């Protein structure tokens, strides 16, 4: 006797199973991340073909199985066909899907995350192609925020001093450090760099594990590349000013120049990789597709 349950979910990942099936990883409102088989989805005449595609939102009826659940009915509510119009939109969508796969929980409702992801996929779909990077960066910040790990950008993470970027001063700078939790004053950043070992030891001690004997070089060598505490970065006034706006639900300055968005995306990527302790693989394609020479052509 198999039990069935209903869910509304968006497909985030698909892997092939056997000759004709697909295993989908789906973010559902009701049960968080689930994995379920779409039987026969790769057959030419299967109704599951289109419905099992990435970013397709379905109203699902699912049968619980011993090892894997099975989709018995699916009715499509949304499929974001416009994402497929440009490489930038497709890449941005896949980046968000990967981030959500890193942060979503299983076996509990993920309604807020579900709505947030859909909202931002819709914005990227409708966006002008030159604003895709801005919308992507905004979405990354918002996803981190809903996970409760958004970087602190209004106050220095180390001294709690208020950070007020002076956009009229081209030399104004602050620091940014994933390990510190976000923005820091330039003095704090320099201090931190000088005491790299001390800081990493302190962070480890709050994690319940104190290993002060570890030499700094060993600490960096032992960390996987996406987790390495260095490099700490600097951030200019315009970048920080835009950063401080990203917590708002609406994006206020999508048309600000793309180097700013590129810089912020890099910082958020480094930060997200540090927090989720895994690389964001889709990001490599972001580098290719938003590189200046490619983004100038249509």
């Amino acid at each position, binding site marked *: 006797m198999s039990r069935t349950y209903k869910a509304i979910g968006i497909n985030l*990942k*698909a892997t092939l199973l056997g000759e004709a099936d697909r295993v989908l990883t789906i973010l559902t409102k009701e049960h968080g991340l689930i994995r379920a088989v779409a039987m026969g989805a790769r057959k*030419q*005449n299967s*109704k*599951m*073909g*289109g*419905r099992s*595609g*990435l*970013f*397709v939102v379905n109203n699902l009826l699912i049968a619980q199985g011993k090892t894997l659940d099975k989709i018995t009915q699916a*009715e*499509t509510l949304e*499929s974001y*066909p416009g*994402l*497929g119009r*440009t*490489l930038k939109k*497709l*890449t941005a*969508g*896949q*980046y968000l*899907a*990967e981030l959500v*796969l890193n942060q979503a929980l299983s076996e509990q409702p993920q309604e807020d995350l579900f709505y947030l992801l859909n909202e931002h996929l819709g914005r990227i779909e409708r966006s002008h192609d030159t604003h895709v990077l801005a919308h992507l960066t905004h979405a990354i910040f918002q996803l981190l925020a809903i996970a409760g790990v958004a970087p602190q950008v209004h106050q220095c993470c180390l001294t709690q001093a208020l950070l007020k970027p002076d956009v009229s001063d081209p030399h104004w700078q602050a620091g940014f450090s994933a390990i510190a939790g976000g923005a820091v004053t330039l003095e704090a950043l320099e201090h931190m760099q000088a005491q790299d070992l001390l800081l990493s030891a302190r962070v480890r001690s709050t994690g319940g594990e104190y290993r002060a004997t570890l030499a700094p070089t060993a600490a960096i060598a032992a960390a996987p590349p996406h987790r390495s505490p260095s490099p700490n970065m600097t951030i200019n006034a315009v970048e920080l000013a835009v950063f401080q706006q990203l917590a708002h639900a609406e994006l206020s300055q999508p048309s600000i120049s793309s180097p700013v968005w590129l810089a912020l995306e890099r910082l958020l990527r480094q930060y997200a990789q540090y927090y989720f302790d895994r690389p964001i*693989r*889709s*990001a*490599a*394609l972001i580098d*290719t*597709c938003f590189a200046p020479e*490619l983004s100038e*052509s249509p």
Partner: protein
Amino acid sequence: MALVEAKLQVGYCSVCGHLSAEPVCDICRAPNRDSKTICIVADSRDVIALEKTREYRGKYHVLGGLISPIDGIGPEQLSIQQLVRRVSQQKVEEAILAISPSVEGETTTLYVGHLLKPFTRVTRIAFGLPMGGDLEYADEVTLARALEGRRDLE
């Protein structure tokens, strides 16, 4: 499984990447095939399927997979550079992208198309409803795609 074993014994064509017992495959060596047209596919199985139609008389290029950022498969893992070199150095008049309409397929199509456009005319095969299938039985995603790919009646 059978295909994996065949690959181990057979090897790939050094020109197009299709399965071949010889260094250059039958299709690439055929003198009567049009080398000004290259059809780009993800996998050797797609070449076999297209050959069954007996409609296509050009040559092929097998990418060896699809770009799938989430799975860590980037453009550099596919034979895209070889393709660009082939198209830019030979007198190719049309590059036809024949790649499945999934997110990974679209990503690959757009990426490769973008790289080839400076050198040649780039087209893609049409996707829509299966022959003999009733419209009312088609799924919503396929129908939406078919609508998006509509064209003028000649």
